[in-house]
């Protein structure tokens, strides 16, 4: 399509943040202001490329008979293993690239509040972007895995070094949990790559499911190998999303991370998990999803849906019971990502049916559910990042996260209050704002497939209202707590600049979702053969 400094745009999106990170890290730490501006400059440049990539993709959507991937580049690399540097994006990846490109500059801007070793902090944020972009554009399983692991490292240090009082515990938990998950994934990756002789995701998607039962692989029954590989991927991505009950790392990590870290963790990193399901677990294991889990006598897709609904309901309750503003927002992620999960369960079932019989029972429903799930990923990225920005802002000013210490801030901080309510409403899924569109699509898609579970999920949706209103009430309403009489509580101009793009996107997506939805829809329709 187009080149940047002789490099294709996707490779640029991966490499540029790493180089920018090095430059920023190497800069003299004394001149913080310069470091910040340079980091922001890089982030904005990379963000601009990401936005361009998205809109070029939107304008040049591949025709139904062409490959769904654009910006495809394949370069030989590690041919010994059968891995290659293969990047490209479809509509789902384009959406995620856009989200990453938008959020990183805003996180950099928010990190200006970090005074301690500012240059390293900023460098880590940029370096983190490399990992994220790498996962979203990878078309090779090896590359995917590489960047998936890579993204852990900077986030670990961000939490461990710049986090809140309990940061050591949170960072270790985050790291152990994630690495524990990816261990199985590494094994599965090797198993699949080695037995199929390639790491091409597209090739694997057709070949790997076709390995029939009965034939022996490495002397082990194929079904066993497949089951093991499935579990490896499944658990790794469940941890990342996070799907209940693999979520307990999240409130700690999100709660303790510095503002920018929380923004990117919730905004983008969780999407790695959901993206992994769409890109790998569903295409590679279509047969497994509709097979029965012996112990429970339900199929895997239903199990996944049930866990997602548990996340929706219990996540909402857990958020409702919090008195720590950042943990409240963190649990809201468990709640919201549950909708992604249940949408993907519908996709998985339909894809399995399609693989087995040539057509899904109700392709339209599955497409709507998947559209909803992907859009929910994007929407949650916007609203959770904005929520963390606001929670971080108030924490930075008051040095407490305890909701009971706040009260009546709307008196002194009218602009902050208005933005806080707007963002909360987006998070709550108020119709007219972004979250509603995706939740509506997901509910529409899951209702005919998992009827009872969808009905139960409504309890979660109800309590979403509960914890959101609790947050507004504790921060803004009530008589002003005179303890903060002499504090500056109003939102800072820099914070307004950082949150403004998110607010605009929330409103635009809620009012005219078709600016982004057709990009997702085309790819999803193609995957599910609508």
């Amino acid at each position, binding site marked *: 399509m187009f080149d940047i400094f002789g490099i294709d745009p996707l490779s640029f999106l991966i490499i540029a943040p790493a180089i920018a990170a090095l430059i920023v890290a190497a800069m003299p730490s004394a001149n913080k202001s310069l470091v910040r501006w340079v980091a922001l400059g890089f982030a904005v440049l990379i963000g601009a490329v990401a936005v361009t990539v998205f809109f070029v993709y939107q304008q040049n959507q591949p025709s139904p008979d062409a490959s769904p991937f654009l910006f495809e580049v394949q370069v030989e690399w590690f041919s010994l293993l059968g891995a290659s540097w293969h990047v490209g994006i479809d509509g789902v990846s384009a959406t995620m690239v856009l989200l990453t490109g938008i959020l990183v500059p805003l996180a950099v801007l928010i990190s200006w509040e970090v005074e301690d070793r500012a240059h390293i902090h900023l460098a880590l944020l940029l370096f983190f972007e490399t990992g994220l972009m790498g996962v979203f554009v990878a078309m090779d399983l090896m590359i995917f895995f590489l960047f998936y692991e890579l993204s852990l490292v900077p986030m670990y240090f961000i939490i461990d070094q710049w986090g809140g009082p309990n940061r050591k515990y949170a960072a270790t938990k985050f790291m152990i949990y994630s690495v524990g998950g990816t261990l199985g994934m590494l094994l599965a990756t090797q198993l699949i790559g080695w037995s199929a002789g390639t790491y091409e995701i597209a090739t694997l998607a057709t070949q790997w499911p076709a390995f029939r039962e009965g034939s022996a692989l490495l002397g082990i029954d194929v079904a066993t190998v497949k089951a093991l590989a499935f579990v490896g991927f499944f658990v790794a991505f469940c941890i990342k999303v996070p799907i209940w009950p693999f979520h307990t790392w999240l409130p700690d990590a999100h709660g303790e991370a510095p503002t920018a870290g929380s923004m990117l963790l919730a905004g983008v990193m969780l999407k790695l998990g959901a993206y992994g399901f769409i890109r790998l677990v569903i295409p590679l294991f279509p047969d497994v999803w509709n097979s029965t889990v012996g112990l429970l006598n339900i199929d895997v897709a239903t199990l996944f849906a049930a866990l997602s609904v548990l996340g929706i309901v219990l996540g909402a309750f857990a958020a409702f*019971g919090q008195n720590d503003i950042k943990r409240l927002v963190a649990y809201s992620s468990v709640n919201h990502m549950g909708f992604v999960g249940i949408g993907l369960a519908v996709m998985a079932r339909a894809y399995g049916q399609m693989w087995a019989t040539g057509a899904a029972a109700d392709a*339209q429903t599955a497409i709507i559910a998947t559209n909803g799930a992907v859009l929910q990923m994007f929407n949650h990225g916007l609203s959770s990042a904005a929520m963390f920005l606001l929670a971080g802002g108030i924490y930075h000013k008051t040095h407490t996260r305890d909701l009971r210490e706040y009260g009546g801030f709307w008196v002194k901080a*009218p602009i902050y209050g208005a933005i806080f309510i707007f963002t909360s409403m987006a998070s709550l899924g108020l119709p007219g704002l972004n979250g509603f569109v995706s939740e509506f699509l997901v509910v*529409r898609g899951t209702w005919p497939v998992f*009827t009872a579970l*969808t009905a139960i999920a409504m309890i979660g949706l109800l309590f979403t209202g509960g914890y959101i209103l609790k947050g507004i009430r504790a921060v803004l*309403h009530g008589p002003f707590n005179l303890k903060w*009489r002499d504090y500056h509580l109003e939102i800072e101009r820099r914070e307004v600049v950082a949150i403004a793009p998110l607010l605009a996107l929330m409103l635009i997506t809620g009012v005219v*979702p078709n600016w982004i939805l057709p990009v997702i829809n085309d790819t999803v329709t193609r995957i599910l053969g609508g």
Partner: protein
Amino acid sequence: MEVNFSDPNFLPWLIPVGPLLAFFIITLATNRARLVPATSHEYGGHHPDYEGMLVPVATVPSRILSVTVGLAGVIMALFFSYTVAFSAFGEHGFGAEVVYASNIAWMATGDTAFRLGVFVDPLTVIMLIMVPLAVLMIFIYSIGYMAHDPRQSRFFALISLFAGAMLTLVVADNLLLLFVGWEVMGLCSYMLIGFWFEKKSAYKAAIKAFITTRVADVVMLLGIVYLYYATGTLNFRDILYNPELLEQLAATPALIFGSWGISAASIIGIFLIVGTIGKSAQFPLHVWLPDAMEGPTPVSAMIHAAAMVSAGIYAIIRIYPLLEAGGNPHYGILSQPMVLMAVVGSFTALFAATIAVAQNDVKRVLAYSTISQLGFMMAALGIGAYIAAAFHLITHAFFKALLFMASGSVIHGMEHGEHHVHEHAAHGHDDHHHDDHHGHFDPQDMMNMGGLRKTMPVTFITFLIGGFSLAGFPLITAGFWSKDEILADAFYGLTKGYGAHALVFIMLAVAAFLTAFYTMRQLGLTFWGEPRTEVAKHANLGRGLVSFTMTLPLIILAFFAITAGFVGVPPDFPILGPIFSPEHNAFHYFVIETLHPAFQAEAPAVNAIPVLTSFVVALGGLGLGWWMYWRKPLVAGEEDPLVGILGPVHTVLKNKYYIDEIYVAVFVKPSQAFSRFVIDFIDRGILDGILHTIARVATWIGDLFKVLNTWLIDGVGDGIPDGIFDFGGWVRRIQTGHVQEYLLVVLGAVLVIGIILALSTGILQAAG
């Protein structure tokens, strides 16, 4: 179709634009404030005094601009609405052959798209007549009512959004867009009920309103989703003007409860009705509405009349054919949703009326009367009295907006009087803080009033007109005609021996009697007799702009509270029929075309029994009220005679059957306890417990290996090469401290990998 806004098919798009634009303009541009000390009188009223703190108060130019922008938005909406409405009146065959509609592809769903747009049929038209007019009155009233509020700009922004959302809901051509307006209104009422957010009662009421309606809304969402799944569309015309489709839905077993013989149409209908039960405050989700009066009074008028609760009834009137599907109320065959509406509606009508009898707060009486009147509409729909429900919706909106604003004037007058009394009392001792009085004296308590007719004559007359309309005073009030039509329809079914109709007739007749009684009680306690407190003696609206803007809307609405009924007089009604309906019942004739001919029903012929019933219950109730509260008005310190008559029943009624307390015990407390249980027991206890156990075991195994190492390797190993030792030492040095160094090493490693990658990519690309 070419987009052309002079075409009535496109013009409805512009109707909500004015108020929505006003919201954004006020929020972003005309919301400037200056800082004043919190103890200043400018921050008085509903706000606490914070010692030594500056608080923002809207500047005068901002106030003027905000009011202007808000009014301009509503007038714009009114103009476009009436243009569309009058264009529709002039249209031949409007409703049956012609409707105004246009839509756009809004959301991609596979190979098709979800389309969204505007739609105007006769039902929309009557809403377009009522809503902008009532909203304009409320805006004018708010100018005076909010003139001294420190956040007047914010108020006008929110109430503009409220109006915009209601108009969006009215012109929506599908259930999804309706739901958007529906929920945005929910947000606005939350914000406005909690407008004086520093008050505990205000923010509690706001949360209660939002959560209670949300209980219903999540169920309604399922209904919308199910309908969308079952029909592939949510467009009103496509679904509701399509009897074959509806029959098919009524013949399909539902996805859940299908085995109990419930059809898809029924379950969808029930889900959607639950939405209305929440929004229109029907039992058992009525609890939020009485508390909603914590907001400024214009908001109450907005919620109770022009927008919020009317929207609930409007929605079920709108989807009525779906609710009827599978039955025919005119032959006594009721589908399950219809039965639900008939039972819930008639029960609520009576239940709320009994509570209203025992309330002393001037606004609370009105709040329960709203619940009761909405029950009338709901019950009417339940027996298929479609037109009567729509008619009552319109007349009720006018007289209830009037009543709320009149009660707001009363309260304002009482506060004025309180101020006056206080200034006199404070003359002697200046150190007395001016806010001391607040909290002790309740300006909304009717027991503190009495005799207000003398100082507030216009308010008295208009309140009287509104009250009589609510009570259904025969022949001259709008409320009589609409209520009579409901009773007539119910009676018609009763004569055929239909059980639901009989239930509705009896319950509503009793409720109507109670309505007339508590209205008269309210009027008597407030305006008649002699002032029971010093404050009431001095209650008045003062003079000037505030008084003018708060009086003018009352007069205009009083006009409609009488005349709005005359558009729906049955043509065969003795004497009045030929005068007002020479050809046909204008309202009936126009609105019936909303329905597909398969669902249309003739109005029953005038029958003396229901008409006499209307006369008797209205006049009887008013008479009893007069006998108890006007003949011998209460004097200061005297107890309400009802207390003695009803005894312990009065206590139950006064406490609203203790439903709030029951809900707290059954729903609120257990939810809070469960949320703590999830955090402490499930997440911390079980899940993290398992994790920590694993971690402990791993550490233990690690320690075991370390011991083995020390014992085994160190014991044997003198021959460890120095190189490895050195390397180990180096690693240890990194680990023991300088994270930055460690980081640099990691980054350096990545750089190397990255450069190799980049170069190899670039070179190979160049080569390729």
